[in-house]
């Protein structure tokens, strides 16, 4: 089976990236910043909701690699390294080459923590 890539195309350019190479995508007004596993950041001229739809439509169930957190963030669940609800801190890291700290609401982080714990038991 062919490996799936996420393809984000505009009238003038195209980004083709393997899902596991995406660390997170954060909203920046009407645009988004895609942070890659090589520490590069790419500005995407789409809103976060549109990117979420692309992930769902193109990757199908494999899109469950990604979790939408609130209005401002889509993260790759494989890189969840540290969650601190009180300080609203989420660290995404491969514990080798990159570490990114993002923040989210306490309730969202609590739900994320519960989800990770639940999946660890199943």
């Amino acid at each position: 089976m062919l490996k799936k890539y996420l393809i984000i195309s505009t009238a003038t350019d195209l980004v083709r990236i393997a899902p596991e190479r995406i660390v997170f995508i954060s909203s920046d007004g009407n645009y988004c910043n895609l942070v890659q596993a090589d520490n590069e950041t790419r500005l995407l001229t789409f809103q976060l909701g549109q990117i979420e739809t692309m992930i769902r439509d193109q990757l199908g169930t494999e899109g469950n690699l990604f979790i939408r957190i609130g209005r401002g963030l889509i993260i790759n669940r494989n890189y969840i390294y540290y969650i601190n609800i009180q300080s609203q801190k989420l660290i995404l890291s491969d514990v080798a080459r990159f570490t990114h700290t993002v923040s989210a609401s306490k309730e969202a982080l609590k739900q994320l923590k519960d989800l990770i714990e639940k999946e660890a038991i199943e």
Partner: protein
Amino acid sequence: MSKEKDIRDDEIRVIGSDDGQRKKSQGWKWLVLLVAGIVIGIIVWQALPVKQEPIVEDIAEPGYFDHDSNIQEQPIQKTPLSHAEETGHGFVEIADTTINDIPLQIYIPHQMSFSLYVGAVDRNDPSILYAAQAADVRADNGGIVGAFVLKGEPLAWGLSKKGYCAIINDTVTIGVADNSPLFEEATEKQGYFFRQFPLVDNGQLVENELKGKSIRRAICDRGGEILIVETLTTESFHDFAQALVDLGIDNAIYMVGSNSYGWATDADGVRHPFGNPDPPKKKWKNISYLLMKEKP
């Protein structure tokens, strides 16, 4: 490409989960229900007795391109940030969110009456359900900066800051203006009025020249919902104002104090303090507070 459902800042969603798939595959059931509903509707409509409407002639119908003065554009309704149920008592709902990577604490008053207070606030007064510093105090003479009205009594005049907050008959109005008739109205109606730096004016960011970073706090109007928003990290005026705009705030003015002591009491009666509890080193007699108490 169908659009994703809206998501709140306190929610998460696994993208491409089975849940989404299941919803897709059940689409035909909705179609069947819709068709059945239309058929039943037609049958019921046909069975009803036909009411003869009187024929009225010579009524000028507005043309497609005629201007109808009765049709007005409705303002876009914003989804309230509050998710708490009313308890019949006054309380402050405390929510948190993150905008542009700035963690924000949002204080949403319920069943509250607003007022201003000048002097050291009584920390042991259980009737005060929210307290935070409001107007600035001059460092040279300890006077209040900008126009200030306390229960109908004007204590200060002047326009050093264009943002204002008026509390008149329990209605809070936040705006930006050189001169506001609400100052006079506050004096006439035993109301309150203070001035501060404007941050958001009709949904637009207001630039302030002040530099530096600090814990920021603002009183805001979001679609008629009055809120206090504060940052949990030190931020510049610009970044704070931008976060307020992105939160959908219509009007906001700054509240002084940064790290000064205050508190909010939640629905369970638990007091959540913020700021430094140590008494201020310099005791300003004109220090002012925005207070909230349960509506009588």
